[in-house]
């Protein structure tokens, strides 16, 4: 899924900084009590002994009366933590050991990470406990399924361009190259000297052509105004805003497959429903 020698070039300076900060920027603003992280307690234990209890949000140690992993609910209500995580002192080492025994350095990074997830699944309810208890087993989706889903979503030999603009000029961008089941390239419009270039008029099409001739493959682009992206992200009705953006031209598309449109609408619909429930 990720090529071993993936090429990562020309990410820009401001460009990439903005992209990495984008998720935080899109997060809905919170005020007052909402701003605080939910209270969570981490207990590191050995048998009936607590080695350290930590208030995760406040990053401080706390004293707890430990009742064992079978009575986390009682600990939660007594201490007033809605979430309690109890780790046996060797749990992390065990997860690593499981993963290390299975790991082959030639395997795909995704598969390698799945090894750690499988390790955690094996330790779930053996040395890793939580309150609320969660599922009895951690379902680990086979890596092959993930690969198949990605293959079905992304046409082979594509260059996926995502750009956020401010008054038509590039504010941040990312280009991912996908070929033969692997992401092989990560770059940005900086590779064309367009870190803050104008994407208005026919410039997007010209940029797509330049990318295509530089790296090969067909460019599939989604370009959205920053204000519009924020509006969709924070909207009470993301579906309506997405629909508006697509039709008003605030979200421009180039060679976008139908399956992406379906996916965009499905995720906007899900977000809308979720917000309505909230």
């Amino acid at each position, binding site marked *: 899924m*990720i*090529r*071993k*020698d*993936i*090429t*990562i*070039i*020309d*990410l*820009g*300076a401001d460009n*990439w*900084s903005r992209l*990495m*900060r984008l998720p935080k920027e899109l997060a809905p603003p919170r005020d007052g009590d909402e701003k605080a992280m939910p209270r969570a307690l981490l207990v*590191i234990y050995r048998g009936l002994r607590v*080695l*350290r209890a*930590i208030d995760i949000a406040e*990053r*401080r*140690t706390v004293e707890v009366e430990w009742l064992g992993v079978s009575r986390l609910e009682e600990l939660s209500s007594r201490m007033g933590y809605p979430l309690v995580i109890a*780790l046996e*002192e*060797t*749990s*992390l*080492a065990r997860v*690593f*050991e499981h*993963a*290390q*025994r299975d*790991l082959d*350095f*030639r*395997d795909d*990074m995704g598969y*390698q990470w799945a090894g*750690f997830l499988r390790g955690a699944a094996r330790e779930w309810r053996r040395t890793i406990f939580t309150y609320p208890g969660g599922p009895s087993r951690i379902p680990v989706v086979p890596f092959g399924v993930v690969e198949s889903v990605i293959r079905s979503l992304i046409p082979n030999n594509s260059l996926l361009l995502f750009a956020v603009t401010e008054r038509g000029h590039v504010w941040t961008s990312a280009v991912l190259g996908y070929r033969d089941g692997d992401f092989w390239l*990560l770059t940005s419009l900086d590779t064309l*000297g367009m870190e803050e270039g104008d994407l208005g008029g026919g410039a997007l099409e010209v940029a797509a052509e330049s990318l295509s001739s530089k790296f090969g493959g067909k460019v599939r682009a989604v370009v959205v105004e920053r204000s519009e992206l924020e509006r969709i992200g924070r909207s009470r009705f993301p579906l309506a805003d997405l629909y508006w953006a697509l039709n008003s031209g605030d979200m421009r598309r180039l060679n976008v497959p139908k399956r992406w449109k379906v996916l965009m609408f499905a995720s906007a619909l899900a977000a809308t429903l979720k917000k309505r429930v909230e």
Partner: protein
Amino acid sequence: MDYSIKNQRLLIDGQPLSFFSGSFQYWRIEPQLWGPILESVKGMGFGIIETYMPWSVHEVSPCEFDFGSTDARLDLKRFLDTCHDAGVKVLARPGPHINAEMTYFGYPERIFADEDLLARCADGSAVVLPAPPRMFPLPCYHHPRFQAQVRTYFEALAQALGGPGAIYPNGPIIAIQADNECSKFMRTNPFDWDYSEHAIALYRAWLHEKYGDLEQLNKVHRSSHSSWQMVDPPRRVQASVAADVPRLLDWTQFGEHYINESVRSVATMLRDLFGDDVPVFHNYPVTLPVPPLDLIGAEEFLDFQGIDSYPQKTAYHTVRAGVKYTSAMSRLPVMVEFSSGSIYYALPLTLDDQMFTTWAILMHGIKGVNFYMIVERERWYGSPVKRDGAIRQKHYDFFKDLLSDIRAWGLEGMSCERPVLLLANREYERLAGAATLLSPNSRIIPQFAGALEMPADILISDESHGLSEPVASRYARLFAFWYWALTSAGAHFAVGDTSATADLLSDYSMVIVPTFEFMDRAVQQTLLDYASAGGTLVVGPRAPEMDERMEPCNVLGSLMHAPEETRSKAEVFGVEVEEVVLFGGQEDSPSFTYRHRHGSGWLVHVGLVPFAMCSALDAEPFAPMVDTLLRTGGIEPFFVPSDCNVDVAVWRGVGRTVLFVANPTDEAVHTGISHTGGLQFEDLKTGQSFEAADPFEIGLEPYTIKVLGTKR
């Protein structure tokens, strides 16, 4: 050519070198751009570049190498000649480990395919480094076949470059780095790895060397081995009485030997091939090199050592502590890698981060910096010179101004005035390493999360390990307490550890070291000699009664008072502390501190066991205590800011004093700075003058540093 290090500066033929360098990775740049890019780098004022020389890139098939015969980008000789012709000196870093954000960190894949060469965890699994874009198993540097493979690469490299002929002045290389960030890849928890055959053999040999005979080892380890082959390292923390602790400490201390011997083997090969004259150095991937990193031990076979750091501006104190340590303990304190731009998957460092943190490391004693990367390349972004040679103007101008200012202000020839030395106690650090929870988490991993701003004991077990109290966690809290209390009092201090030599200690008027019930006998003697010779030694809260082998030892303890009373959860200066130890004596009422003469110096005992403190503000109530302590040691506090969050460093040179004033907070501050010298200062950047008043007032924007110089 004569290389030497004097007053923390590298001299070539007696001439001090301006140690400012930038990283430029030739194999990732088109050869026709090498020359023009070097000119751009020189345009910023750099006279040195640094480059890795990656094994995996030059090895085209097992033990066959390409140094430009088929791929022009691998023509290292041509690259070095280009540097030499341009008058640019080179720091060479041939690995074998290089990271460089490369897949497999510069090791050829075939190394991992050979299971026999791999390091092992306690359960026998190969040790994996979870690094993108591929995780890989780590080799054991003590395996003879691994060493032979490394040597084969180095021989090919030396042959391609002409061996000693590549060294300045015949070539551009002025120093060579032996391996890179050798730190067990930060998985330094002693019970994590290495339990491979060759590591255990090294452990046995080290014990043999340390104890001489098996009988002595059996006595100290409470074992009954009949041969050295029977000796096996502990695989988890297991200590129910104090006598169990030496075996734990030995295994933990062996980690230091393991790392140093890894670097030594690489350094020896490089010296064999490039000659003894060129300085060989090393770098550590953390800012505060606590055990198993051992700077003083490594200086036996290295010429100098530095640290690496990629800090956001909010990590000011983590970097400050590390720089205070390195600048006190290293012969030539350099930042071998300091951020210029960012790695693709890390949180971005802005130009504001760059400006603030660069001045911060210079302020606290770093004498040379290699900016990594000064030339952008694959898997890196935000450098002043782009991959195609274009300039990123704002970044370029920053470096140009920085180097110009440093030289114009004469900072390279000055030294930082710090009369106090805070010592980390290596034995307790080792114990804290062993008591670190959630292996493979280690003592040094939290540094990346801004360790100093978190409770120091947050991931250290509160177990006592057979001792009379939880020394590991209490020590961690106490060390942090001293750091913050000194900071809040505006004291000018350096950080070191108990491996410091008597010579090094003698540079300071006051040495502060946490002491608990056991302590290395030789260290106790060194500290006592320091006080005898006129220094002020601050110890406590406990009087050591045992040495590192848990045998009775009262070198220091015999001079310290027994407590009259111990109070738990008591208030001191309005702050709740875990324990306060009261001593009777000179005063009417019992006090938690007393002093008495020792030789021509002082021994001061402070009986405090604090709870966790994470900022100067937490420790502010103790500032008057520190102030009194300093005066006890004959240190008149100088240039003390009235705002405890503001940080001041004082540099002295011939006929000039320079003050660095830092605001490491996210709010603008206005502070007074006490001043009794009658000197008048000006802002060296803006020319703004400050009255010679006491105190004089200064305002600082968030995350900024002002540099003030005495008016000439």
